[in-house]
């Protein structure tokens, strides 16, 4: 293994699509174009020279940005070699709406069923996503320019518009606060070792293919014999220097259109609170795990005194001092999506103490051990809001709003699908029962007719407060798995057969 030698080899930022590194807050306008290939040759010709934005930081912030990603159907439509396509991960090859088993896992059942999606299933699976970003007022021109470039090769099946980036998601909460810190400098040592503390710094290989992940391993991706890359377009694989790495500097991109019923959400909270405005806000904050301004309900790490996490550090906390969820309910949305725990449940650092916990003999530790090892299940989010304004008073009935959820990951199954299925859709997260994610749950009962439409809020001085009969607030309207290639891999896929 030459992993250690590669430790210092810097990331080829010029080959990484900028979206992996940047959220483009200053590019307040964006739209996502979902295309199908109409003329493979013309499509490839555009992709071979499409002005894709790299991850290199420039002195002046860019005025516009463009990113390109493919579905597996798209790769096939572009006539990429089938054996190469087949080497991508099974989830990507199958696609998000591939079968009923995946739909069950992802909670895409009932109103979320792919059969009712606006796009992403059947004939409406996109081949390519073109993500366009621009400074205020510049998107229309940018979009026109790009559309004119690709028009010969593609037809557009959907244009996902976005609202001006504001921090708040449609229900009215600050969003996008919790993000993993990507180890761009490759500081994390390449080895497989238990982490006794939750840390936000996450191995590059969890988000970019071709680099070591949290296990110290390289996630499988298409590797080719060098003669299949006669032009030498592709980087060589770190873990197999004699192979050309199609995955390096690329990653998977999960896109889901999540429609939010803002009026329904606040109406239900009003009902639950019996019209008490203050209680309504507290219940909503309990469901999210943060107040509207982003302040987490949990206490900051290292301080159990009860001081709130400072506003300046809204992501600097764990749930270690709140094992029962008295401050932040166990089932709160942000606690489900990122439980912030280490590989071993809390306890002493001594070898014996660790061994004792490893064998399960520490009962207190076991209680907190139903969910562990968060670091293998992180998502880098890049979604944008769409539709009308978030304030419920100002949104007209029936107006559609929500989030075009985007997350980036090197392993769709272990990251996105795991979080979605085990932590959000699952009705038994962390030993809870009768509830799935308070925001995203589909509310259909489990087998044995056990409800999933509850939400429990632990109280220090009595039984859990319990909300029941929650309706569905978020509906999936579309979705697909994409591959966001490194820029050289993009050129390779566009030019080589």
């Amino acid at each position, binding site marked *: 293994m030459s992993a250690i030698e590669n430790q210092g080899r810097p990331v080829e930022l010029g080959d990484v699509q900028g979206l992996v590194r940047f959220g483009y807050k200053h590019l307040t306008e964006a739209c996502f174009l979902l295309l199908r290939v109409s003329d493979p040759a013309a499509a490839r010709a555009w992709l071979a020279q499409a002005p894709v934005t790299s991850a290199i930081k420039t002195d002046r912030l860019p005025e516009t940005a463009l990113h390109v990603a493919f579905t597996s159907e798209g790769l096939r439509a572009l006539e990429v070699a089938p054996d190469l396509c087949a080497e991508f991960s099974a989830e990507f090859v199958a696609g998000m709406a591939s079968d009923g*088993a995946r739909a069950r896992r992802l909670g895409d059942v009932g109103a979320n069923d792919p059969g009712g999606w606006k796009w992403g299933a059947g004939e409406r699976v996109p081949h390519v996503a073109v993500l366009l970003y621009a400074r205020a007022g510049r998107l229309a021109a940018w979009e026109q320019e790009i559309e004119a470039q690709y028009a010969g090769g593609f037809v557009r099946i959907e244009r996902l518009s976005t609202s001006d980036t504001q921090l708040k998601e449609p229900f009215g909460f600050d969003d996008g606060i919790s993000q993993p810190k990507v180890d761009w400098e490759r500081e994390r040592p390449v080895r497989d070792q238990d982490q006794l503390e939750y840390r936000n710094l996450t191995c590059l290989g969890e988000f970019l293919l071709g680099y070591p992940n949290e296990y110290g391993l390289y996630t499988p991706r298409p590797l080719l014999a060098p003669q299949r890359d006669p032009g030498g377009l592709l980087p060589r694989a770190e873990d197999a220097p004699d192979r050309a790495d199609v995955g390096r500097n690329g990653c998977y991109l999960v896109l889901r259109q999540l429609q939010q019923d803002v009026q329904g959400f606040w109406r239900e909270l009003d009902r639950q609170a019996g019209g008490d405005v203050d209680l309504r806000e507290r219940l909503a904050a309990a469901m999210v795990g943060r107040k509207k301004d982003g302040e987490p309900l949990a206490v900051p790490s290292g301080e159990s005194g009860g001081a709130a996490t400072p506003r300046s550090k809204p992501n600097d906390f764990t749930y270690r001092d709140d094992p029962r969820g008295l401050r932040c309910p166990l089932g709160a949305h942000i606690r489900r999506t990122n439980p912030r725990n280490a590989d071993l449940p809390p306890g002493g650092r001594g070898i014996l103490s660790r061994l004792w916990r490893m064998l399960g003999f520490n009962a207190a530790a*076991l209680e907190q051990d139903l969910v562990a090892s968060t670091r293998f299940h992180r998502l880098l989010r890049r979604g944008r809001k769409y539709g009308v304004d978030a304030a419920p008073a100002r949104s007209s009935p029936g107006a559609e709003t929500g989030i075009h959820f985007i997350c980036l990951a090197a392993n769709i199954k*272990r990251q996105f*699908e795991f979080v979605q299925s085990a932590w959000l859709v699952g009705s*038994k997260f962390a030993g809870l029962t009768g509830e799935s994610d308070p925001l995203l749950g589909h509310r259909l009962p489990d*087998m044995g007719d056990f409800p999933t439409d509850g939400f429990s809020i632990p*109280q220090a001085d009595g039984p859990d407060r*319990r909300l029941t009969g929650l309706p569905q607030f978020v509906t999936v309207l579309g979705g697909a798995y994409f591959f966001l290639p490194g820029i050289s891999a993009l050129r390779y896929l566009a030019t080589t057969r």
Partner: protein
Amino acid sequence: MVVARVTPGRERSLRELLETMNSKPGMADPANAVLPFGQFERLHFARLAVLDDPTVGDIEAHDVPRPSLPVYLAFIGSCDGPASECIEDLARRAGTGLRRIFMHCDGFDAQGDLVTWVQAHLRPLAANYVNWVGRTVRQVKEESALRRALAAKVPRAPLASAAQAQQLRRELIDFVDAEVSAGRLGLTPPDPTPLRWQIAKLLHLAAIPLAGLILLPALIVLSPFLICTLRTKEHSDAEICPPPDRAVLLEMQHLEDHDVSNQYTAIGSLKPGLFRRWLATVLLVLIDYTARHIFTRGFLARVQTIHFAFWAFIDDKRRLVFTSNYDGGHEAYMDDFINKVAWGLNLAFSHGVGWPRTRWLVARGARIENRFKHYQRRHQLPTQVWYKAYPGLTLADLKRNQRIRQGLEPVNVTDAQALAWLRLL
């Protein structure tokens, strides 16, 4: 576990029959006409699986010719009380259905005695894990009903004082007593453990360490040789971890995630040679020992999501079958294993042909995430029929419900204990 060879040419008809027992893919209808599992009040889990091992040829990597091994039908049940009683009960109340199933197997005599035939095909388990030894189906169901009743009854406003917790608890206990008297709730006291079992357990508790003690001198003398052999094999044994066939994988996924729990059935060949054969045997004896005497109260090391699991050798220890009933989805189950007990997986399974390379018997192996995940899926077999007596309930539910019931009993509790109990509801 009952294992019987499927008569060549009858496999298809067997599969068709098994299919009729399900209400959803792979999920048994508790009232199905062949084996109405739901009528057997002591049956926790049951499954019927056709053991047709697609990985038999892997052993060629060890320069051993591909053996010709039969296709088996496995019938597996986890029940309260001795297996023999469970089999007799099944034969008595569902004999016709059992005969219809076993008619597809070699040597089944439709006129002969069913119980004798089934007993003769019962295989010993190499290691057996039960999440909570002594928790019966009846207890699970009664305690679940208890929780539902109490959860609906308990007022959820904050309490005025700590003393109120005591009063509330007393009221709820009175409520439970009234419901029990009215026959709406049942709280059957547990049956005492038969003396025979207790003695057998004590003997087992002592016998294994004793045997270890006797073997110890020989082990010490042989240890340099054994360690050397282990390390050599760990370096040279072939890894066979290609991705599982997509169609087969999808077939298995269609059987999964209908309930909050799932099933897993896997098969594989042992690496050839006496060394692995003996090592696997000894380690499974030790796993069985810990499962019987140590891990009997809700956890197997850090894993708290396995209801029942066992290992069994078949074909003269050439192959090993593993089955489990676990909470959550397959991916979460495997991640839990990798992240919490990869060392245990390596101890138990690294003697299988093709297992990802281990170091010193416990390190690496299952930690090589993708190879392990491919390996375990490739060795998994579809479970044609699976039954769970308490759908919708996980082990976390069972444990909490058990604590709720236990909390009814003490007469005097502190305010804090009363509050802690209320918070379970």
